[in-house]
């Protein structure tokens, strides 16, 4: 583990140097295996947050309060530690610049992590493909990568939209409700533009997003989903 970076009060990015890492495609994840002193093992999957172009692997982990693994990763691990990883895993929820766009990315909470890998890859390749990201979170303190997303959204074809569903800070100009059809129409692009859609987050968010998009005329086959269960952790 090369370093750890605090992202929010509940989330942290772990930066790893992985010996023999074969490279990955944005959207993929890896498996971590943790072994306690008595030999007990736990395995979990985490989406890779870093672009394939990076030399290090970044994972952003959000603490689930009664989780078995995430509290350890967020509170305990430190630079210099070693973790067993396996990967990359996942051959469907992936995007390469050469796959083209336009891109519509919908992120619920920590679902933004694999989409961030796609955006970092897009930036590393200097792509200006029409990309729209809608991030949904409960409150402003839960938004991940805010500064970086703002700077990526500065010209160059990326439009950033945020919705805070529970509380909004004073002066908030983003959306302030759960994702709905009207919001998605405003975010665009329309179904006519045939965007590649990636939806990631808790199951309820993904179900809702996918259903709304199908209702707006997007082809089901154009919508790729990755659901983070509210389970384990």
């Amino acid at each position, binding site marked *: 583990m090369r370093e750890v970076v605090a992202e929010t009060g509940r989330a942290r990015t772990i930066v790893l140097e992985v010996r023999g890492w074969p490279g990955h495609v944005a959207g993929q994840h890896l498996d971590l295996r943790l072994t306690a002193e008595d*030999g007990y093992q736990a*395995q979990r999957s985490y989406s890779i947050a870093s672009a394939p172009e990076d030399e290090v692997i970044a994972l952003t982990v959000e603490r689930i309060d009664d989780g078995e693994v995430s509290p350890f990763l967020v509170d305990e691990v430190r630079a210099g530690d*070693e*973790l067993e990883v396996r990967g990359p895993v996942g051959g469907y929820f992936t995007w390469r610049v050469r796959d083209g766009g336009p891109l519509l990315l919908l992120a619920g909470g920590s679902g933004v992590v694999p989409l961030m890998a796609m955006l970092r890859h897009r930036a590393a390749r200097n792509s200006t493909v029409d990309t729209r990201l809608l991030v949904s979170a409960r409150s402003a303190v839960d938004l991940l990568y805010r500064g970086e997303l703002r700077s990526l959204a500065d010209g160059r074809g990326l439009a950033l939209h945020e919705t805070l569903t529970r509380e909004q800070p004073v002066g908030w100009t983003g959306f302030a409700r759960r994702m709905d059809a009207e919001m998605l129409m405003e975010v665009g692009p329309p179904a006519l533009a045939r965007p590649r859609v990636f939806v990631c987050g808790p*199951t309820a968010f993904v*179900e809702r997003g996918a*259903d709304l998009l199908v209702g707006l005329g997007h082809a089901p086959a154009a919508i*790729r989903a990755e659901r983070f*269960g509210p389970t384990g952790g």
Partner: protein
Amino acid sequence: MAHITRGFKGRPRREADASSIPPGQYVVSDFPVLSAGPTPRTALDAWTFAIDGAVDTPASWSWQELLALPQETFTVDVHCVTKWTKLDTTWTGVSVDALLDGLETEADFVTAWSDGGYTTNLPLEDLTGGRAWVVHRFGGEPLEPEHGGPARLLVPHLYLWKSAKWVRGLTLTLEDEPGFWEAAGYHNRGDPWREQRYWND
């Protein structure tokens, strides 16, 4: 001995746990939903289940015809390749043995196919001998679309991606034809007890 992770303790362990769940799995009490795309929603009056491909006589059932077949209610553990295991899940459905009864085939393999385009492949043998069902009720209630309703395949001795949600048919094939996840990096057979998750396991 595996590399020990500094500072990791894990949950308090009970003796019983380790042997009753496959390696690398952890037990959950909820029922996670994972799928690659939107949830298909098919009306029951448009729904059919087919057995076709390398069979002498293809067969098909409407929803009512499926419900009129002998039903079984049974309780099994299910194991997802993403590491979660759910114990003691209760399902109601028709045994695949009953659906295959009377059909002549030389096929050794099956592709299960679903609304929304999902496919998964299995050896025919894995679907017989009381090890597979087409189920339509979970926990005594009609199976919800998120979990594969109106009906899904259930093959509990393999990872749950083989239990095709929204199943509409089984195509018998002479050759093994990798399905959706099998062609996307996952193992061809998916035995959780041998931890066959990915293509290079």
